[in-house]
């Protein structure tokens, strides 16, 4: 069909065979599985990162892992149930969109452990862990880098859709830029789409044309266009969620990474150690490596700036720098 | 004088059999045609004439049988072969691409081309002008088909064949849509062609033409070869009975009758055609109860637009239509029907029937919402089927099955369904447009009877037809339409074909062009 009709992508062919192999060698192992949101597992973003976390848990903790992908909003509940029937010890919901579904499932299956990425509850059920990321902290760091590295004094931010989760990236970035370079200007535009690469490209082109020389995107597939524009214009871009340097090695100077993989791995460790943080909302930030900048940053970012970044990071962790994740906080502080 | 070369058999078809599924359209038909002869094929609708000719032209493959062209056995697998063999065909239903120009239609498939497959239009036009001059077939090379008269369209069809160097020309019911003058022209053209040494096979239902034009005539009935006769020593009556297998009466018998007061008054009506050109230009007319008023005219003089305007299908720009003293100008079709005007549309398949509806469903097309067929918007199939059964019975529609789709009915039977429906509406005014087009004598007899019955029931009947014979046969008064105006009205008694034909062609009146 048209549009998202086909955004469905299951496991690589070789996956199961490996699993079966392990099944034979390993003695009774823990089972962990995840339900992706409609982005699908190869979304170059948090779904993929989450799956990496699972694989890490498989390789290092001997977990048995699998996943189901969702094609439509309506698939979440039944996919969670598919994994429930598969007898998993821990089931992950990847993405805030699954908030309701997880709550529902947890309510009906008190003995089943669940965890959800990017979502918190007012009072979290005992069998659920909410996992949040301080995306704004990573965004602040890349913003700092942008503020330092811009030669034109203008940088840009391209958002996917104009809503809270993206606002974290948006205002964290702006704050970082301002912190590094108070009179730098930040051009902001939302594409109102996570799939329209052409629009991402057009917006980025416009920003570069207006004099920006570094553009940060938090816009999924639309971001492909942003990075493409950077390549063509031979300007800089900043990736999001994962290290996107490979998309344009000469142009993506860094990425604001959301280490969903780390988070999942850590929770898996807790689970294995028998202290599953049920009923809590765990917030990952710079402190615990839940967010951060891409390892490839040193390819383009001068060492001295990276040292400053390290210092800024320390200050943020120490609470000496306040990082806003919404308009009001930003306006109040910057 | 005719110059037939009897030693040279240009066409020989031997024991041709053609089956469509289990239905046999041609059954052991033999046909022999000599060089320079005009050979007529006569038969009722569905007798198998077109099928036989389509086989000769390579459109159908015979189930069995042999074909010889100029004595040589041939296997005509497709029209290309036929064309190579010098066979050309003008089809019963014109095969013209409407939005194309005359020239484009003629050269299609044999286009003169320059480099890179680019068409050489200039040359094409020259060629067309050349042959049209050569055979005296006048056409306007650069006009689009939908802009030219049916007569010219026919000439285009013939030119298509001649352009491909046809030696044998097949004409399938060419005269159905022509005026007497155009028919005369056509006959002269056929003569000229035979003078040129070409051979003509003509399919027709019209015995008069056969007498006039043909040398030989082969009669086919229900797919079987009945006889081949030399025309000059046979009578029309004989041909007719051979064709139908029984005696047929030609003159529709109706006793004269006093006409009542005007039921339908048309006051200087103005109507535009699809291309927003005025087609009906201030036409006025009165039709009285108990008369059949025939409108004679060449196709494309505003008949279609006139009828569509009267039935509410086309906007009336100016003028009035008054029915029983009530002004129904620009009323909706529904309102018109409610004002007791019924009509037999000229295109039975486009307007008259929903081919994918059953016969029963078609029988109630105008009354589907009325009791007893429907109540509070719920349809009552028993009532509908009962009604349909009666009409099928009464109007002898075949097959006698109200549940089959109208599509699978034959042309004539489709027409019967329409007539049954319209007449049963018990209208004050019945408009019949080309009611017998494409029907055979039997069916025609029936239609004419029904029209006359209405008249005798003191209804007003407006008959529009291109068939002058038909008009003269059953009308009480005849109005001649030319370029959207009535040029004259005469009593059928003292009407004569030639003067009418002349008026239809715009003669007789000075102020024109």
């Amino acid at each position, binding site marked *: 069909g048209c549009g998202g009709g086909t955004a469905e992508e299951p496991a690589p062919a070789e996956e199961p065979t490996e699993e079966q192999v392990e099944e034979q060698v390993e003695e009774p192992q823990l089972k962990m599985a995840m339900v992706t949101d409609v982005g699908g597992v190869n979304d170059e973003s948090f779904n993929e990162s989450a799956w990496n976390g699972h694989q890490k848990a498989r390789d290092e903790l001997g977990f048995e892992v699998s996943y189901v992908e969702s094609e439509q909003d309506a698939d979440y509940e039944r996919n969670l149930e598919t994994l429930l029937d598969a007898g998993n010890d821990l089931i992950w919901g990847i993405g805030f969109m699954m908030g309701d579904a997880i709550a529902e499932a947890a309510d009906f299956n008190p003995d089943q452990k669940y965890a959800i990425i990017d979502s918190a509850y007012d009072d979290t059920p005992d069998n659920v862990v909410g996992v949040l990321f301080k995306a704004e902290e990573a965004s602040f760091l890349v913003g700092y880098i942008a503020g330092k590295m811009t030669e034109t004094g203008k940088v840009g931010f391209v958002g996917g859709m104009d809503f809270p989760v993206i606002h974290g990236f948006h205002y964290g970035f702006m704050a970082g830029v301002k912190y590094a370079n108070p009179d730098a200007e930040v051009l902001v535009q939302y594409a109102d789409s996570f799939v329209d690469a*052409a629009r991402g490209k057009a917006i980025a082109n416009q920003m570069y044309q207006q004099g920006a020389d570094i553009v940060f995107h938090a816009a999924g597939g639309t971001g492909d266009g942003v990075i493409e524009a950077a390549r063509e214009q031979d300007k800089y871009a900043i990736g999001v969620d994962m290290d996107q340097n490979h998309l344009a090695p000469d142009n993506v100077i860094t990425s604001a990474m959301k280490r969903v993989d780390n988070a999942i791995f850590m929770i898996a460790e807790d689970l294995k150690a028998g202290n599953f943080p049920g009923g809590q909302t765990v917030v990952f930030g710079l402190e615990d490596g839940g967010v951060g900048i891409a390892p490839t940053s040193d390819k383009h970012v001068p060492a001295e700036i990276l040292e400053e970044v390290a210092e800024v990071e320390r200050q943020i962790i120490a609470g000496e720098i306040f990082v806003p994740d919404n308009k009001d906080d930003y306006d109040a502080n910057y | 004088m005719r110059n037939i070369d009897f030693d040279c058999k240009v066409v020989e078809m031997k024991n041709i059999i053609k089956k469509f599924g289990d239905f046999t359209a041609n059954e052991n038909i033999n046909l022999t045609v000599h060089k320079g002869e005009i050979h007529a094929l006569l038969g009722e609708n569905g007798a198998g004439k077109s099928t036989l000719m389509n086989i000769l032209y390579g459109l159908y493959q015979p189930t069995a049988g042999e074909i010889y062209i100029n004595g040589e056995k041939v296997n005509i697998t497709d029209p290309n072969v036929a064309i190579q063999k010098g066979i050309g065909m003008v089809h019963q239903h014109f095969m013209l*691409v409407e939005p194309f120009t005359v020239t484009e239609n003629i050269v*299609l498939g044999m286009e003169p081309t320059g480099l890179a497959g*680019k068409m050489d239009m200039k040359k094409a036009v020259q060629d067309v002008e050349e042959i049209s001059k050569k055979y005296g077939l006048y056409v306007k090379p650069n006009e689009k088909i939908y802009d030219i008269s049916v007569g010219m369209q026919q000439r285009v069809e013939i030119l298509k064949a001649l352009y491909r160097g046809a030696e044998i020309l097949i004409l399938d019911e060419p005269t159905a849509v022509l005026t007497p003058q155009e028919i005369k022209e056509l006959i002269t053209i056929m003569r000229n062609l035979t003078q040129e040494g070409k051979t003509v096979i003509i399919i027709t239902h019209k015995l008069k033409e056969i007498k006039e034009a043909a040398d030989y005539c082969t009669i086919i009935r229900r797919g079987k070869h009945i006889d081949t006769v030399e025309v000059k020593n046979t009578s029309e009556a004989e041909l007719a009975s051979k064709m139908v297998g029984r005696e047929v009466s030609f003159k529709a018998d109706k006793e004269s009758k006093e006409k009542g007061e005007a039921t339908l008054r048309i006051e200087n009506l103005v109507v535009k055609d699809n291309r927003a050109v005025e087609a009906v230009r201030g036409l006025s007319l009165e039709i009285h109860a108990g008369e059949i008023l025939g409108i004679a005219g060449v196709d494309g003089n505003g008949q279609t637009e006139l009828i569509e305007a009267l039935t509410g299908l086309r906007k009336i720009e100016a003028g009035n239509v008054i029915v029983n003293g009530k002004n129904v100008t620009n009323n909706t079709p529904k309102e018109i029907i409610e004002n007791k005007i019924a009509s037999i549309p000229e295109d039975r398949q486009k307007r008259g029937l929903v081919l994918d509806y059953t016969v029963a469903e078609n029988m109630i097309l105008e009354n589907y919402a009325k009791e007893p067929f429907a109540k509070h918007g719920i349809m009552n199939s028993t009532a509908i089927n009962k009604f349909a059964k009666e009409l099928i019975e009464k109007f002898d529609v075949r097959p006698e099955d109200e549940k089959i789709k109208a599509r699978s009915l034959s042309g004539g039977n489709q027409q019967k369904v329409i007539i049954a429906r319209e007449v049963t509406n018990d209208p004050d005014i019945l408009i019949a447009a080309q009611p017998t087009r494409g029907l055979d004598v039997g069916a025609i007899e029936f239609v004419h009877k029904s029209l006359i019955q209405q008249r005798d029931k003191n209804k007003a009947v407006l008959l529009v037809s291109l068939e002058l014979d038909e008009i003269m046969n059953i009308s009480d008064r005849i109005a001649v339409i030319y370029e959207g105006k009535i040029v004259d009205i005469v009593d059928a008694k003292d009407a004569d074909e030639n003067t009418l034909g002349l008026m239809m062609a715009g003669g007789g009146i000075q102020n024109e062009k």
Partner: protein
Amino acid sequence: MLDSLGFIIGTTLMYSTPLIYAALGGVMSENSGVVNIGLEGMMTIGALIGATVGFYSGNPWLAFLAAGMAGGGLALLHAVASVSYGADQVVSGIAINFLGPGLALFLSRIFFEGATMTKAIPLDNKMPRPIHGLLPRNSFLDLVFNQYATVYIAFLLVGVVWFLLYRTKLGLRIRAVGEHPRAADTLGVSVYKIRYLCVVLSGVLAGFGGASMSLAIVSNFRPTLISGHGFIALAAMIFGKWKPQGAMWACLLFGVSNGLVVYLGRSDAPFEISMQLLSMLPYVLTLIVLMGFVGRSSAPAANGVPYEEGER
């Protein structure tokens, strides 16, 4: 100011190009009397194959052609169904729209270790930009004319298709087949051959359209890359009254309104307007134009009607 204009024009061209290819595809197929709503599927497979061949061969032209062939291959299915087997052309088109993306993802996994997103093609192996670097960066002329070859080819093809349809004998036959197949048949023009040719060509063009996304606008394929373009192109073709030049104008209208969306949505825009509402502009505009200025569009007479040689 001039730069803004340049930007809008440039964006218009970028947006319109893939649509123009696909719309031309529609024009070819439907002028021969075969409805083609499978453009979306054909674009998708084209985009995938383009990105794949481009990545592995490093030769954009090879990739572009491969994409065309992929689209044509899928179109061949449509042709078999709708020409040889008198299929309902809408239905078979819908089927193509399931098969195209399905196959695309399926193949992607085979070519890229189970990933449905292909690897990025290096800038030098993308479609060339003929006059890149000749003009001062981001000058008006640069913004307008410094486009990928695919853009120029698209407009070139508009001319080619126009010439083919209205100036060559093949074109005359194609249109005849679309208007009155029986007439063409009786003159020995093979309706089947013509329709097969046109449908496959339409697939090739749609494939090009997909490739113009994955080889020029971006440099990789993802499942969401083609999301609705085929349907927009279909609309553009109808909008353009089944004529190549008409379809082109429709695509440009669509492109320019997208350019405006981006231009008006920029942060220093004179007025503040919700991006969601702004995003409706292209579609609303299209409807308004259709209502106001275009009116009834008429398809080729025999469009969508299966034809059987030798039946009456």
